[in-house]
Structures are given as C-alpha cells and as structure tokens.
C-alpha cells in the first residue's frame, strides 16, 4: 500500500481515541435552519457538544433527519452554528478550514467529468500540478480497486464504484480529517461489505481522524473506536459508547468477534435507558 503510506501520519501508530489531543471540539452547538419563504425556524441541532481525539475513528448513529449531516457540515464550516463554536486543532472554525475531506451522502461526483478527472480535482486542490494530479488520480483509483472506472463517467459506474471514486477524490485532497456521510447507505448488502472493507482498510492505513455517519448500529460498532448516538430531531447526543475491538478491523468479520455481541448488548442497554428516560421526561 505504498501510495497510501506516503500520507500516513504518526497518529496511525496509536489510535488513542478520546484521550489523544483533541482534533475537534464542538462546544454547545445549536443550529437552526431558516426557511426562505416565511422566515420560520427549525432546530436541527440542539446544544451538541463533542470532542474527537486526533487519530480517532468516531461513528455517529441516529435516525434519519436527526441532524447528522448538519453536524458534519457545521464541523466542516459549510454551515455556521446559530450558537456555540467548533474548533479544529484548537483553532476556531470560521470559514472552511483546510485539510478536511468530506464524502457526501450522494457521492457528489461531477457527472460531466470522468472518474479520474473527478479524483484529479481533489489532487489539484491539494496543490498538485495538472499532470501530477492526473497521475495521482490513476494511482488512487488503482489502489482502491476501481481501475475499471478510469475513462468512464459517473453514470456508467455502479453505486459501489462511485463510492470508491468519491473516497479516492477525498483522499487525493490529502485531508487530516475525514468526514463520511452515510457512505454505504445506498448500497446493497453484498456491495456494502465489499466497499465497506475497502473503506475501512484504506482509512486504517491512512490513519487520520475519521467521523463516519451511519444509521446502522452494527456498522458503527464494527468500524469505530467510539459510537455516539443522536436522538431524533432536534438532534441531541443521547448516548456515547467506547468500542474495544482489535484493529485492523474487517467491515463484516468484526461482527463475529467474541466481544462484538457483548458490546452491542451494552450499547443497546444504554440506548434503552436513554429512550425510557426520553419517554418519561
């Protein structure tokens, strides 16, 4: 995996999780969307606080519409919080900071560019020359096992291939923080395992801080060092859970690890308590 080793950092050596120096600090963030027509407001995030360690692999789980995508966009500086603040590496996020890669729920690939052109855009924005960027794009597509995508436009690719091209574009941008918004939700079960494995292997190899959003609890446990559960809208953090499964992980195999069921059970207990509390309050 020489291509990826080049961007490997010391953080990869020790996935210390939340105890490592903070990569992200989200402090009391509330975000209200304003509807254009009548200026009415709706709260998407309600007083969310969160700390993510450098090199940590964090999963955020929650029902659809609870504000997971919104939270990622706030962290990336694409949305400005109504209240509260976000810091990355100790610096307040005002505009869009450098070094944050976002893989969108819809893959966000440009339909009028070929796979390698899409990836090369990421490399160009990382400061590479045109020829260099193209070279890099071809390397990354090969690395991720989608050589067949080269020369093709997104509509000619399967969903799983598009996801991997989108990841390649983000890797080409060489971020120090990866934000993945439900990267596997549109895929069928088998493709999901295949693509999921590619993602987890690659991200472990790169060793940067990762936040992955999903609505699949098992997927979150299988991949992450820590799982954060959000409550239904307006989004709040309902529960938080540390996962102790050995790395390297396998997207599917990890679920057969003896500790997996136990961790799942504990997380479920926490969740039930939370939900009971919510119903009583």
């Amino acid at each position, binding site marked *: 995996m020489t291509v990826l080793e080049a961007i490997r950092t010391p953080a990869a050596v020790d996935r210390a999780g939340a105890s490592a120096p903070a990569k992200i600090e989200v402090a009391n963030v509330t975000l209200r969307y304003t509807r254009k027509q009548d200026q009415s407001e709706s709260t998407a995030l309600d007083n969310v606080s969160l700390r993510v360690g450098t090199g940590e692999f964090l999963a955020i789980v929650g029902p659809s519409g609870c504000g997971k995508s919104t939270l990622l966009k706030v962290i990336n500086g*694409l949305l400005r919080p109504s209240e509260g603040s976000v810091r990355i590496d100790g610096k307040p996020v005002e505009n869009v900071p450098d070094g944050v890669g976002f893989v*969108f*729920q819809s893959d*966000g690939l440009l339909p*009028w560019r070929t796979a390698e052109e899409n990836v090369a855009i990421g490399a160009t924005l990382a400061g590479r020359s045109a020829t260099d960027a193209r070279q890099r794009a071809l390397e990354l597509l090969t690395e991720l096992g989608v050589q067949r995508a080269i020369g093709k436009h997104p509509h000619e690719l399967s969903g799983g291939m598009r996801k991997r091209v989108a990841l390649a574009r983000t890797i080409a941008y060489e971020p120090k923080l990866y934000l993945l918004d439900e990267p596997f939700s549109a895929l069928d079960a088998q493709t999901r395992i295949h693509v999921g494995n590619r993602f987890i292997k690659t991200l472990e190899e790169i060793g940067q801080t990762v936040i992955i959003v999903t609505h699949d609890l098992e997927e979150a446990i299988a991949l992450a060092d820590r799982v954060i559960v959000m409550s239904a809208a307006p989004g709040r953090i309902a529960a938080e859970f540390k996962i102790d499964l050995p790395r390297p992980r396998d997207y599917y195999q990890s679920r057969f690890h003896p500790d997996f069921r136990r961790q799942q059970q504990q997380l479920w207990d926490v969740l039930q308590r939370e939900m009971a509390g919510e119903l009583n309050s």
Partner: protein
Amino acid sequence: MTALSENLSKPVVASSRPAASKRRQRSWLALRGALDRLAAIIFMIVAWQLAAQFWIGEKWISTPVKIAERLWEMLLDGSLQIHTWETFKEAFVGLLMGVALGIVGGMILGLSRRLSEAIDPVLMGIYSLPRVSLAPMFVIWLGIGLLAKATLVASMVVFVVMLNVREGIRSIDRDHIDAFRSMNASRWMMWRHVMIPSMIPWLLASIRIGIGMALVGAVVGELIGASQGLGWYVSSSSSIYDMTGAFTALVVLMILAMIFNFALSLLEKRLMFWRPSVSS
C-alpha cells in the same frame, strides 16, 4: 474528445446479449427511423401535389413541382442566395446577441435572489408581451437594415435564455457546491467545474426554443420594412398573388430552421456526452 465519444458509443449497461448483435440492432433501428422520416416527407409532398391539382387548386397553394422549379430558377439567378443569406444573418446575429445577453442576465438573476424577486413581475410582463409588436419601433429607431432585425430577434430570444439560465443556476446540485467548498476551491474552479457545466443543458434547451423565435423575429422584421430576405420575398410575392413565390420562401425558411436545429444537435452531442439520456 475522441476518447469521450468512443465511450458514449459503448453500451452503458452490460447485458447477456452480445454487444455486436446489439449494435447491429441499433443501426437497423436508426436506418428504419430514417426511412420512416423519408416516407413521411414523400407522403406529404404527394398529398400536397394531389390536393393542389384535384381539390383546392394550384392558384391557392401552388404545387411542390412548381416550387421546385422556382427554387431552381432562383438558385440560377442568385436571388435565392441573397434572400437566404440576409434572413440567416438577421436570425443568427440576433440569436447570438440574445443568447449572450440572456446568459449574463440569467447569471445575475440566478445569483441574486433579491434582485430576481424584485424584477420578476416586470420580467414576466415583458416576457408575455408579444414582442413582434415592437417591430415597427425597432425599424423607426434602427432603420431597415440588419441591426433593426437582429435587435428584434434578440429581444425575443433574450428572455427565454435568461429565465432558463436563472433556473439552471438555481437548480445546481447543492452537494456539488458543498463538495467544492469543503475542499476550499476557488470561485474560478467552482464556475469552471460546477456552475457552467450545470447550466449548459438549460442553456441548450433555451437555444432550441430560441431558434424558432429567431426565425419568426427575422421574418416579421422583414415584413415591416426590408428590401430583401425570405420574409420580404413572402410578402412581396403574396402582394402579387404569386403563391409559388410565397411557398418557395417558406420552404427555404423551413430548411433554414432544420439546419439551425441540426447544428444545435451537433453542439448538444459535444457538450452533453455525460448525459445518460442523450441517446435519441
């Protein structure tokens, strides 16, 4: 570009049917379509000829044979070229002016919601106005030359283009913009890779509508005040009950419209290669 068009000709979806037989079937379908169209044209010409001879009368609707003779005569004495070139120039220059203005206006409106909402009622009012009624004024202001007609054409085309480009900008996929913003792309990168390509389908659609309008504008302009052009030829022929002359000019106009549309189709093929639904 060659690499891209090669990709387009490949079957997009793999299927159990071998590619070669699929290609053969597709070329057979294309051939059948062309034959169907040819048959339709021949049918209409024959029906016209028969209707003129045995039913309505030649003096009212002329006949295809007479029109063909007139075309030949006009080609030989050079008048066909003169009139066609005149009308083509008016329509083409006007179309270019309208499209250019429409793109600029549409971009401004697309980017500034407030401005757009402020002038929307006025815009829709002018848009609904039959702009051919402005033709006499353009002649008064700008004379009977090329400029008056081109301006009339532009005034008809500009609004469709403007409204389409505005809609194109508004309907840009949010995720594409966010993806570029999240990588701190410059404004220029954003325009080049996201905004302009997303607008192109809307622009082409508006040009397709604009072509029809451009020819109407050019002809109406010539009806009001001109000394040459296909529209002038129609009106001067009609005024001396020369139906063959009038219909000949109309046939040439039709061919002109077909050429414009064909050129646009070529442009679409070049620019919209990435669209899965572009195959026709």
